Each structure stands twice: as structure tokens, then as C-alpha cells.
């Protein structure tokens, strides 16, 4: 038995019946990390020793009957923009290269309450801005299915670590697709919850009205379990909603009979890769076979989502990132002549090009004389997008789209073409604009053996519905049982 190939619900079972100890599990993951990390480069910070130490302690507690948490002793990886007390939180930026948060994010407190074990902090595009994890200041994470390809982003470290078995599951964050797109590129499951379901307290803000933390897991059941842990109102985040606590695994019925699935045709139009399209069409057939009612419809407004997204996200980012000024914490330039020079140099040297690009864009769209034409207009379009989604959900339970128009691309192929990189977000951003839940699950491989992802979108707080739809598809298609990442070096 290879422990690192087990899902968390399988690990949990084996922990419960004492087949495995937390130390067995943690050690297996640490060994795997030592084997694969040099190729995959998923971590910014690894915590092998701390993790093993903690596993021993938890085993003792389990033996004494003290550790009662359902997930006590299960390891996890955390995206490096989620604050962890005492462990560096870098956002993969030079700006926060040595930053240690004085507090734990709410989601991290929740993991700690479960006595889960933090294996390390995962690489990402700097401040979550990007779709390939190439914009990390520290390293380029590689796709376990082909080490010459990107893992997607911005939660590329999280997706690659789960796909390569270096962590059993991970937390990511999603502002415009940053959980779903890397999950799709790496052949794993990624869930972006409804805006307001998971507390953002302790998530270093990129775009406050769009950011959500969510699970990246090996299978749908694990996503439901991790969502159980992290969901819930937090009085420290007033944008988090008071919703009834539910057990999302209870929704996993392996049955989609009568489920109404809408397929917005705009997501299958121009720019979509033929193999991706074919794979999605096959998935639609599968759903039909499973008894779902699938119908194509038009979500015309979607074509404005990308522009709307980049205006709102950049505007909020330009303000959110103001606090990185070299005064209280983070990078400060060595030599400066006065205060302005200190700001200018610290921020010029501390931020990478993509972050600067977005700060400049955001500053521009908020500046006087342009606000109405850009930011205000974008907010109006946002309302229209929400209205269109509301209409769609009067007819359908779930919307089905590709997660990304393409599979993972070659490292370096888009990093100098920001517009092309932005276009890769076209399928995912609408979901953030609408504040909706979306999940990406693998639905096949292309000819080169790269995973293709399918996105299922639900109405607000209907995570249960999309989880069940994803679960039923997964049970039928058994992607994980059929395909494994190859860690091949590709054709160089």
C-alpha cells in the first residue's frame, strides 16, 4: 500500500481502525516530499521536522484517547497567502520573503482545532496574481503530469502538491479561478465556495470582493470533508454569511437523475481547444446517461465578465497592496533619500512585474476622471452578470463548462504575454463575479496525456448540489483510478 496514494477519507478510516498511525502517514508524505519536491517545486516552506514531531504527539494523544478530532493527525498543505502564526507567510513575494504572521487565519485555527498537521506552505503566483505560478518570486512549480508544463495558478503549488502525492489535500484561494484552473491542469479536484461561506480573515487580500479560500483534493469526497471544516460564519469577517452548518458529505448521493444541467454555449466558443471541447462533450453524454437533463442555453453577459473581473480585481488589489510600504514589516529598500524614495524603491524592488502591472491598472481605473468609465461601469456589469446567473438558476440546478479553454501550457510560453494569460481565466472569472460556488474535476486527458477539467457551477450556497454532481461523475468515470501523473520531463 502506498499511503500517499490514499485519499483523506481512506486515511481517516485507517487511522480510526489503527491500521496506520499519524506518524506512518506523516512520514510517508515527508518521504514523498523528499522524493518529488526537487522535480515539482511546490513548496515555499516545508515543515518536515515539525510535522513529524507533531504526529508523534498526536499519536500519543490518540492512544490516550485525548485527541478526539475527526481529522487529528491528518497532514495538509496550505497556500502561502494564508496566515500561519510562527511560520512564514510569503505570498511568494520578495515583499514578504521573511514575513511571519503574528496570528493564524480563521481557517488555520479550524485546522488546528482538528489537530491537523501542517506539512508546509505552498507556492503560488505572487499575491495570487497569475494563472501559472510562474510569477512566484521564489520558484516555478512544475506540473506533475509533465514537468515542462505549468501547474496553473495561482494555487499551482497546492494543486501540484496534491497531484504528486506530497500532501493528501491542501488549501488554496480563488479570486478568478485560482483554485479551479490549477486543479484542472493538475488533474485534481478544486472547489471555490460561495463568496461568504468561508472566512477570509487571515487570507492576504488580493481582491476582497472576490477572494475565497477552498479545498484542493484528490477526490470529491475529500473536498466535501475539507469544506465541512473550513465553512462557517466568522465574526472577524463581516462579509462571511450566517448559514446553517451542514455536512456536505451527506449530499454525495451518487445520483443525478433529474438534475437539470445548463450548458452555456458561450463557454464553448472561440478560443477553446478542440480536445477540451470534445472531452466536455463526452462528459455531457455521461451525465445524460446518468439520467441528468442537459440543455444548452445562452449566457450572453459572460463575454463581459473577463473585462469586469480585471477592472474590479485590479482596483481592489491596488488598494489592498498599499499596506506593503516598507514601514512596519516586509521588504524595505536599503538606501533611500526620503520617505517617497523609501516607498518607491521598496515597492519597486519588493513587487514583481505582474503585481506592479495590476496595481497600475487598478490605480488607473479608480483615479478621478476614470472611475465612472471603468470601476463604476464594471460594478454595473457585475450586477447584470449576477442577474443573468439568477435567471439561469431558475431553470437549472448546475451549469457545466470547461474549467479552462486549454490544458496546461509550457512553462515560459505565456509569461511574457499578460493578455494571453488573462484570457486563460475566461471560464472561471464569471463565477467569482457572481459570488457563486464552482468546482473543477478531471474529465479526461488530451493526446499528450495532460488532464482536462470540467467546471460545475452552482447557485449561491448550493455547494451540496455541485458536489453531488461532481461525485456522481467521478464515481462513474474513475479518473483517479485510471490515470496517474507521470512526472515525465517532456520533449526538450
Amino acid at each position, binding site marked *: 500500500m502506498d499511503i500517499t496514494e490514499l485519499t483523506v477519507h481512506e486515511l481517516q478510516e485507517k487511522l480510526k481502525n489503527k491500521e496506520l498511525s499519524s506518524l506512518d502517514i506523516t512520514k510517508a508524505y515527508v518521504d514523498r516530499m523528499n522524493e518529488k519536491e526537487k522535480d515539482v517545486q511546490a513548496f515555499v516552506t516545508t515543515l518536515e521536522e515539525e510535522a513529524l514531531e507533531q504526529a508523534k504527539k498526536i499519536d500519543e494523544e490518540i492512544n490516550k484517547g485525548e485527541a478526539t478530532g475527526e481529522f487529528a493527525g491528518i497532514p495538509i498543505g496550505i497556500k502561502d497567502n494564508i496566515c500561519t502564526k510562527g511560520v512564514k*507567510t510569503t505570498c511568494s513575494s520578495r515583499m514578504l520573503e521573511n514575513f511571519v504572521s*503574528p496570528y493564524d487565519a480563521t481557517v488555520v485555527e479550524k485546522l488546528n482545532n482538528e489537530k491537523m498537521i501542517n506539512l508546509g506552505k505552498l507556492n503560488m503566483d505572487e499575491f495570487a496574481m497569475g494563472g501559472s505560478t510562474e510569477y512566484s518570486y521564489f520558484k516555478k512549480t512544475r506540473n506533475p503530469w509533465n514537468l515542462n508544463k505549468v501547474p496553473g495558478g495561482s494555487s499551482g503549488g497546492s494543486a501540484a502538491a496534491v497531484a504528486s502525492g506530497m500532501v493528501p489535500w491542501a488549501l488554496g484561494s480563488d479570486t478568478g479561478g485560482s483554485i479551479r484552473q490549477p486543479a484542472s491542469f493538475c488533474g485534481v479536484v478544486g472547489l471555490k465556495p460561495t463568496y461568504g461561506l468561508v472566512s477570509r*480573515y487571515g487570507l492576504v487580500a488580493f481582491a476582497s470582493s472576490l477572494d475565497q479560500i477552498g479545498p484542493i483534493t484528490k477526490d470529491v469526497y475529500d473536498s466535501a470533508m475539507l469544506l465541512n471544516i473550513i465553512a462557517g460564519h466568522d465574526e472577524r469577517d463581516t462579509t462571511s454569511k450566517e448559514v446553517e452548518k451542514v455536512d456536505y458529505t451527506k449530499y454525495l448521493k451518487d445520483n443525478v437523475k433529474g438534475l437539470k444541467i445548463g450548458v452555456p454555449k458561450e463557454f464553448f466558443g472561440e478560443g477553446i481547444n478542440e480536445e477540451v471541447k470534445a472531452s466536455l462533450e463526452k462528459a455531457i453524454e455521461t451525465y445524460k446517461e446518468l439520467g441528468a437533463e442537459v440543455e444548452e442555453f445562452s449566457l450572453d453577459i459572460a463575454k463581459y465578465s473577463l473585462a469586469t473581473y480585471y477592472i474590479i480585481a485590479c482596483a481592489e488589489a491596488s*488598494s489592498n497592496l498599499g499596506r506593503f510600504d516598507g514601514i512596519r514589516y516586509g521588504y524595505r529598500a536599503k538606501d533611500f533619500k526620503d520617505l517617497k524614495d523609501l*516607498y518607491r524603491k521598496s515597492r519597486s524592488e519588493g513587487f514583481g512585474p505582474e503585481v506592479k502591472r495590476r496595481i497600475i491598472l487598478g490605480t488607473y481605473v479608480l483615479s478621478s476622471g476614470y472611475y465612472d468609465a471603468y470601476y463604476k461601469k464594471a460594478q454595473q456589469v457585475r450586477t447584470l452578470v449576477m442577474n443573468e446567473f439568477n435567471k439561469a438558476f431558475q431553470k437549472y440546478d448546475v451549469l457545466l463548462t470547461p474549467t479552462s479553454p486549454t490544458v496546461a501550457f509550457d512553462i515560459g510560453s505565456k509569461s511574457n504575454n499578460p493578455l494571453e494569460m488573462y484570457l486563460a481565466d475566461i471560464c472561471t472569472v464569471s463565477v467569482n463575479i457572481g459570488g457563486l460556488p464552482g468546482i473543477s474535476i478531471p474529465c479526461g486527458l488530451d493526446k499528450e496525456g495532460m488532464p482536462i477539467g470540467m467546471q460545475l457551477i452552482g447557485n449561491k450556497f448550493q455547494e451540496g448540489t455541485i458536489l453531488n454532481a461532481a461525485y456522481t461523475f467521478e464515481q462513474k468515470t474513475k479518473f483517479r483510478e485510471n490515470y496517474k501523473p507521470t512526472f515525465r520531463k517532456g520533449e526538450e
Partner: protein
Amino acid sequence: MAREDYEVVIGLEVHAELATKTKIFCSCPTSFGAAPNTHICPICTAMPGTLPVLNEKVVEYAVRAGLATDCTISQDSKNDRKNYFYPDLPKAYQISQYDKPLCEHGKIEIDSSTGRKTIGITRIHIEEDAGKLNHDEFGRGSLVDLNRAGVPLIEIVSEPDLRSSEEVDLYLRKLKSILEYIEVSDCKMQEGSLRADVNVSIRKKGAKEYGTRTEMKNMNSFRSITRAIEYEIDRQVDVIDNGGVVEQETLRWDEVSGKTFSMRDKEDAQDYRYFPDPDLVAIKLSDEYIENIKKSLPELPESRKQRYLTEYHLSEKDANIITSSKYLSDLFEEASKICNNPKAVNNWIISDISRILNETEMEPVAIPFDSKQLAKLVMLIDKGTISSSIAKKVLVEMFEHPRDPEDIIDEKGWVQISDEGAIRDVVSKVLENNSQSVADYKAGKEKALGYLVGQAMKETRGKANPQMLNKMFKEELK
């Protein structure tokens, strides 16, 4: 042209720190004077990932201020971000309110030398204070103290309705007294909990267009505000009379030189890039909420003043002075109740107490004794234990080394001599030594009696009971 040919137009933006126990977006204490960076947490120091949670008391206090100044309360309001970089602003944006303030369209009445006047309140909005920069004693640069960062403020913006420094002074005093009455701010100007940005412009009398205004920021004493306005009016008249144009700019008032100086130039004109704060939800207030606050408002200065005119028969002038401060007004009412002599209490407040406050630039709230002690002072005079001239000395003592007036009198041996034998001894002695005055009195010069009493007071170092002296001299000289 002379200054008289111009009309002065002034508008104020007053910042008042709210007297909430905790900060506006976190639970750090707001108290003044703590060691630097001890009232801070991850939220008010803008650690990455932190989020603000609006303190509901701040909304309540701002609504109180709005209702007390006849504002319309907005039931749908929000917080906006005002973006700019400065080391005392940890998030690089101030959470304020831009286009949907909590309160709008209010007014305040003032009574100036030209009569009663209404000053419009454009808006009152809530926002957070910034921290403070302290210059390092060792010359290594500036140090940031974030204790004040996130202390709640209301900004009260007036219409440009003020026409003189006198009106500004009256408006500010009235506003201050209202805020004190409704207990939303302690208005301690020395601690900066009440400060004003003053916008001044001038135009030729009869002109319709406003002149270009200059702004003097963060003024926190009545005296400097008056001086600065007077200086600025003269400066602007000078500029225009010499064919120049007034530049729109921010000025710094220098107390020592008595001049204003330009702070920034136009190239630095800030674009604050206001936008709604996505971390905070809209502020929605129900009719019931507003109604409940309205019901809880205390009696305001205007109504107290009317009551003093009828209930205590104070003069209009005295009632104005006493009600100008909630503290003075409470002192007056409480002390009057205890000693049952409102006329005497009024006199003490209007004359000696006000004089000392003026001389020492002390705020009424800083008066070191309470209403009981003031009442005791009045009662000691009424009972004849001390004379009113001794009482004046006791009052000075009460300011300088606060304690009960009885204790002061005991310690100082200031008890009035009312012993008939002792008084008679003094009278005999004075009569013996002042035969000329005795003769004058007997010749019909009434004034000579006053001189003799004065001599007796001198002899007893002010402690002799003046009524008894009077009576006894008259008897002796019959």
C-alpha cells in the same frame, strides 16, 4: 481696498474623536496617553490578511451627533476607502465615508453680536483616525506610534456660512457643547480629540462667486483658530490688493510667529481614489433604531438655557456662558441643588471660575473639584464661616491643590473671626489708631467708615466678619 470692502467666507471641517471604549474596527482601547504602540493589534497595524469589523457604537454615536444637529439620518450608508500613503496610515487607506455619509443637511444656531444665525451642517460622517509620527530623540528619524490608528472620528462639515472669526468661535463652542452634552466625545482640544480644518476665502462685498479658499489643517485651540483666521484674512486682502491671486493651498499655522505657511504645492494634489470598502457591508439603519436613539438624547444646551432663564432667572448672558459647557452646566445645577443658592453658584462660575479657566486655558471638564465641593464653598460663606474675600482664596487653592474647602480653611487658619470679643478688640484698636477718620465720620463723611472697616480687615488679614465689623463700628461711633 480696505478689509471692510471684503466679505469673509469660512467653512469648517471639525474632527471629533468619539468616546467609545474600543477602536472603530478592532477591540483595542481608545484611551489617550498610553506608551507608544501598546494599544495595537494585527488589525489596526494592518497586518496582511486582517479585516475590519465596524464597531456599532460608532454608528450610534454618529447618529446621536446627527440628530443633535438636526441632520437627516441616512438609512443606507457605507464605508469607503480613501487611499494615500503616509507612515501613520498603516493600510495606506483610511476607511471613511465618501458619497453616502451617515448624516446630512443639519444646522446649528449661534448667537453672535449681530444676532441669531443658522449655520448649515453639510454632513457628518464616520472615519478612523491615523497614528502619530514622533521624532526620535536621538535624531535617527521618525517613529510611528499607532495607538491612535483606528480611533473613531466623526467629521462634521459645515456649509460656508461663517463670516468672521467671531462666528467661527461661537460655532465651534456651540458644536463642542452639543457633542459634550450628548456624550459622544470628550472634546479635549489639547489632546487633539476635537480639531478643525478651517477653509477661508474672501470676496468683494456683493460678489456672487466665492473667492479661492485656503485650508488650515488640524487647529486645536480656540485662540489659534481666531488668530489664524484674522491673519489669513489680512494676508488674502493684501494679496488681492496688490494685484495677486490667492492660491488654493493647504497652510500650516505657526503659533509662535503668528503666521501661516504653505504646506504642499499643487503638484502634490492628491487623488484619493475613493471606492466602497469591499471588506465591509452596507450600514442599514431601521426607523426604529433611529427613533430609539432620538428618544435617548439628553436635554441639549439650547433647551437648558431656556430653562435657566425661567427656572433660575439667570441673565441671557450668564445662561449662555454656563450652558456652553455641559460640565459647567452640570456643575451649576448640581451645586445649586446642594447649597440651594443658585445665584451664588452662578456668580462663582461666571466670575472667578471662568476667569481662572481663561487664564490657565483650562477646559471646564478639567476643573479639579466637583459640584459638592463648590456647593460647600458657597455654604461656608452663607453660614459666615468665611468671608467672600477669603472664599476667593479658597477657590484658587481648590484649583491648585484640590481638596475640600473646609480642609483648606482649617489648614490655612482662614476661619472667619466672628467672636464678638475678638472683633471688639480689633475695632477698639483701629479706632484708637485712626482718630482722624473717626473725626471725619462724625463730621458726616460716611466714606470714613469703609476705611475703618478696611483697616480692621487688614489687621485680621481678611478674616474678620465684615458684617459684624460694620455693625460694631457703627455702634462705637454713635
